């Protein structure tokens, strides 16, 4: 479900803005580190979970406003270089600020321990993450499908010229989409922190996965992102149970296999 969340955010950014966002993984990592700092400062996990992703969204807003905005007319190569440079900067800043050694972070007291589900014993926090991620995906879906602005955003994915011809401020739309995508990356990072711990490299690992989700699910395709996220999550879990070393590789192997059969992705049309 976390993969779906990451893929969804990236899918929004790439779909609406038509840029390859290589900084998406870095935003994910920043979300996790923000959570640790906010929790350390305020001593409250729930407040951290609220504030940290908003911080990332703000960062996204700033990035779009200061840099990405100037690059819509440039080729993908320069957009890529820009976001890649950004990823390097964020990654190194994490090392400078929080140190190169990984951190671990405990879930809040309420969610420690496990619950007996009858057939298996499951950690409470993981259950919580699943529910949270599910809720967020549903909320994003409702926003995109049921609200006016969501409809405008979907229209922006389909046809930008038409949207701006209809008198809608396309630049504001881009900014909002980028911030929303950054928010989703940030909250995915924040939720992950207590499960996997934190390390400066966490962003890059996640970036590859997010790309796989988008490549399989299709740009701007919400249901595709969810399905692809679930597919590779399950594939990874199954393989991890039998052959731990291969659990990361399998994500990309699944992608290669799917693309062999369906080059356009699972639901893709392009």
């Amino acid at each position, binding site marked *: 479900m976390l993969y779906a969340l990451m893929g969804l955010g990236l899918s929004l950014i*790439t779909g609406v803005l*038509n*840029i*390859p966002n*290589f900084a998406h993984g870095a935003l994910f990592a920043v979300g996790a580190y923000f959570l640790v700092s906010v929790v350390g400062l305020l001593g409250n996990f729930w407040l951290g979970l609220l504030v940290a992703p908003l911080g990332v969204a703000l960062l996204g807003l700033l990035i779009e406003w200061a*840099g990405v905005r*100037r*690059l819509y007319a*440039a*080729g*993908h*190569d*320069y957009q*890529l*270089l*820009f976001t*890649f*440079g*950004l*990823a*390097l*900067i964020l*990654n*190194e*800043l994490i*090392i*400078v600020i929080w140190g190169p050694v990984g951190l671990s972070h405990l879930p809040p007291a309420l969610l420690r321990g496990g619950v007996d589900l009858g057939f298996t014993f499951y950690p409470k926090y993981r259950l919580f993450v699943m529910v949270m991620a599910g809720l967020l995906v549903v909320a994003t879906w409702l926003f995109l499908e049921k609200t006016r602005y969501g409809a405008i955003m979907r229209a922006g994915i389909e046809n930008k010229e038409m949207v701006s011809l209809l008198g809608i401020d396309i630049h504001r739309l881009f900014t909002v989409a980028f911030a929303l995508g950054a928010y989703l990356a940030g909250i995915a990072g924040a939720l992950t922190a207590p499960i996997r711990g934190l390390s400066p490299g966490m962003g*890059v690992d996640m*970036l*590859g996965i997010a*790309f*796989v989700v*988008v*490549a399989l699910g299709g*740009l701007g395709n919400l249901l595709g992102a969810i399905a692809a996220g679930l597919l590779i999550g399950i594939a990874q879990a199954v393989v991890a149970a039998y052959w731990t*070393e*291969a659990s*990361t*590789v399998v994500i*990309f*192997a699944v*992608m*290669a296999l799917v*693309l*062999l059969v369906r*080059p*356009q*992705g699972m639901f*893709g049309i*392009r």
Partner: protein
Amino acid sequence: MRAWPLILVSICVLPFIVRPAIAAEIWIFAIFGLGLNLLLGYTGLLSFGQSTFFGSAAYVAGYLLKHYAIGVFPALGIGIAVGGLSALLVGYLCVQRSGLYFIMLTFALNQLFYFIAYQWTSVTGGEDGMPGVPRPAFLGVDFRDPMAYYLFVSALFALSLWLMQRIVQSPLGKILQGIRENEVRAEAVGYHAPRFKLLAFVIGGAFSGLAGVLYAMLFGIVPLEAISFVTSGNVVFATLIGGSGSLYGPIIGSFVFIWLSESMSVVWARWPLLLGVAFIIVVLFFRGGVVEAWNRIWRFSRQRA
């Protein structure tokens, strides 16, 4: 053609300005860049996974050099073959998509190879890299001497440049440029675009493979970074900073990039931060790279005169 004297002079002068190892690294990176530029500059394909071919070749050839004591030329041949073959695999999956999907796929497949290298510690050494790659002597020439190895690398670079020049000017090169300019029209004229893109991939991969083996022999180690996305990003950056539209762009870019990273890494351990800043400055203010900037200055001075 007019650039050849300049290149020969630089080959002769360079090792006396910087250490031969760094001079060799510049030419190796230039070979790597030439391979990418065939895709990026001439075919219009932005591949963000070139280190797949670079790293795979370095690992395979390095492993054979280390454990089976093969000679220099067999190692190079194997590296070129591995580079081309891995490019064939990756390219087959990637050329069917275009635009953003293409970029993301090359990156994702790069990650696939990266994680294989990361986990397969018994062969690759994982995070520690694969040390102990030798530089075997050839016909009595001891390549352990830095200068001898430098000259060897330079000669191979000159050969690569000549070959790439021939490729770009050949009918194949023209077809690739046609695909870059207008893929639909190239298809309409009768060229099956995916097949030619794949061909460009394999040629680019072979150049990357050559660079990868030379790199492994230069430093005696295959670090994990050789196959990581950072290397892919660096070669894209070097090519763009030099100017992707020209044959010589990647060479200039390689100079600037190696010089930048060597001088910055001495200053601060967190130099990738500065590198990131450099990327952004180039993107926001110097699009087109050094070659483009030079052309603009040149045209400007011509107008004034």
